[in-house]
């Protein structure tokens, strides 16, 4: 009896440690479909749960969902599971689930699938059908409860960590998108798939108080790198979204430790040096432009990323490795970094980020030469502060055209700029307004 149980234990260890190598040849996305079969108070739903179903407790803590999950065998099977005879009877979100299923199987993904780190190259795609629960005024936590995500498990193996991704797509981020629903859900999948390629282990509390992030929010370096890379993968399939990322960078959001955001022009003193690389949209654009501007750039970016992929990924490290891998492209890397950070990096910042490369040095020397066109000037910016923060100073012109500096916002409709009295930790120091006309804070007003 003891021998038998010991044998079983050893078998379990063997499975846990070596099974991935057995699957090594497979590169697959396995898909499951989940439907909500009931919603109600937790206590009620936890009683007599039908076989094959499970209970998910809502973020409100009071209610729960019963859900049933079934592995999808093919497209026709998925349509049947969604309760339709043909595609025409699918809801907008269900069409999105079907299109995501198709999208995940298209040939363009195959070359990316081989880049999934570790020996086990499987990804679980869970399509969650929230049909009947899209009324957010009644099901107030439905978006929180089923927001799309990539939940990952690391498994220790002989050569480090195995990474296993489970991507959940539900369409809760595309409610009410009508005919644009399916495209948006595919785009979300591409982003989450990008995370599946990436070993970055993001910082604790990387996303700030609310745990969410805007594309133009300053977050922690590893998190902004990971999100930027995921957005880059998305833009490989949806290049038209590059414009959206550029448009978002008119301002940058900084979350306060206690919650809420302040918003500043990208060129403000709130962001400097490597701090620009803490914004995921900037990282996404650096990846995207390198891939687009260099010959065979997409392959070069992906190869270099894969080669150096590790838990401590961040953009400066990626760029230094990229230059080591492809020294002939150092100038383009420097140009790209310079352009995507709006020409705001000093020579020292660029050297710190890219390392001491002769071509980088040449680029820096050329950009400061009067014969060379400097980086494009900043477009005119407007300040907007989402909510008032104590200690904020507002600069605005009154009806007579005189500059006013106040600690309260100006009358509604009056354009203004602001400066917080406190600095972003570790980045910028408080600056007193000595002379409003020469204040470096006043940029492009």
């Amino acid at each position, binding site marked *: 009896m003891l021998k038998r149980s010991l044998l079983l*234990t050893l078998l379990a260890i063997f499975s846990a440690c070596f099974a991935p190598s057995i699957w090594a040849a497979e590169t697959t996305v396995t898909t499951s479909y989940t439907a909500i079969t009931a919603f109600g108070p937790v206590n009620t739903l936890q009683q007599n749960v039908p076989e094959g179903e499970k209970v998910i407790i809502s973020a409100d803590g009071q209610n729960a969902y019963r859900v049933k999950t079934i592995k999808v065998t093919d497209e026709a099977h998925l349509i049947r599971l969604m*309760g339709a005879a043909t595609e025409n009877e*699918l*809801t907008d979100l269900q069409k999105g689930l079907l299109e995501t299923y198709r999208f995940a199987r298209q040939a363009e993904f195959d070359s990316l699938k081989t880049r999934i780190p570790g020996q086990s190259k499987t990804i679980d795609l869970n399509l969650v059908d929230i049909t009947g629960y899209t009324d957010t*005024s009644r099901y107030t936590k439905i978006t929180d409860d089923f927001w799309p995500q990539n939940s990952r498990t690391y498994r220790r193996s002989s050569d480090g960590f195995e990474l296993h991704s489970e991507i959940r797509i539900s369409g*809760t981020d595309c409610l*009410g998108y*009508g005919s644009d629903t399916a495209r948006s859900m595919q785009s979300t999948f591409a982003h989450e798939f990008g995370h599946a390629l990436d070993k970055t282990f993001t910082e604790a509390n990387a996303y700030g108080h609310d745990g969410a992030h805007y594309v133009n929010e300053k977050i922690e370096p590893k998190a902004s790198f990971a999100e930027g890379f995921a957005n880059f993968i998305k833009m490989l399939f949806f290049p038209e979204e590059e414009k959206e990322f550029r448009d978002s960078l008119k301002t940058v959001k900084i979350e306060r430790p206690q919650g809420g955001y302040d918003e500043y022009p990208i060129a403000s003193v709130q962001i400097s040096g490597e701090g620009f690389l803490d914004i995921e949209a900037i990282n996404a654009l650096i990846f995207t432009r390198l891939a687009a501007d260099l010959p065979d750039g997409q392959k070069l970016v992906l190869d270099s990323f894969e080669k150096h992929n590790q838990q401590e990924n961040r953009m400066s490290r990626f760029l230094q490795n990229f230059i080591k891998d492809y020294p002939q492209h150092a100038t383009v890397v420097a140009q790209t970094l310079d352009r995507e950070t709006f020409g705001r990096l000093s020579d020292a910042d660029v050297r710190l980020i890219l390392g001491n490369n002769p071509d980088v040095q040449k680029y820096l020397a050329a950009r400061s030469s009067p014969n060379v066109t400097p980086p494009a000037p900043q477009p005119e910016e407007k300040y907007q502060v989402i909510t008032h923060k104590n200690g904020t100073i507002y600069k605005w012109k009154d009806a007579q055209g005189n500059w006013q500096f106040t600690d309260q916002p100006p009358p509604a409709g009056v354009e203004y700029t602001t400066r917080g009295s406190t600095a972003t930790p570790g980045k910028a120091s408080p600056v007193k307004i000595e002379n409003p006309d020469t204040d470096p804070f006043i940029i492009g007003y």
Partner: protein
Amino acid sequence: MIKQVAGLQLLMMLMILTSLIHGRLYANQFSYVFPPNISLQIVDQIEEAGKIRLTAIIESRLGTIEDLEIFFESSKDLRILSNASVIKSVPQASPRKVKILAVKTGQKADEMGSWLKMGVRFTPDYQAIKAAVNDKQIYPDDFERQKLLNVVEKNLSENARYLEAVRHFVNR
């Protein structure tokens, strides 16, 4: 000997457990979602003599939704006797009730169990959507709000019809 083996087993199980760690979840990418256009509910299930009677409630949540085409689907063990129908419009705060009658067919339910579904294809009130999204109190972020407005304009230019449904699982 027994203690030694049990201890070894415990140790090995601990090794397995500690070899699996959950990676930190990536956080939610912030994006606004539209306010709901429509609310669909199925209530009051009454079962008698092989028949199932239900009431569906259709409500507009935003302005007046128009040209509603209502249709039904069910698992193989049920047949819905109610006909597909059309409703010209449903204004906000004027819910409409739809009676549904289904009978058991004697066949087995499918993988998802025993269920029936009411689908509604409709034209949303685009002007009401635009007005709602333009509310800067609810959608304060200019960039994210504009993304929603772009989606509305695209749907409006295509005169896109929306399709929502509610699925009722029987005996729950």
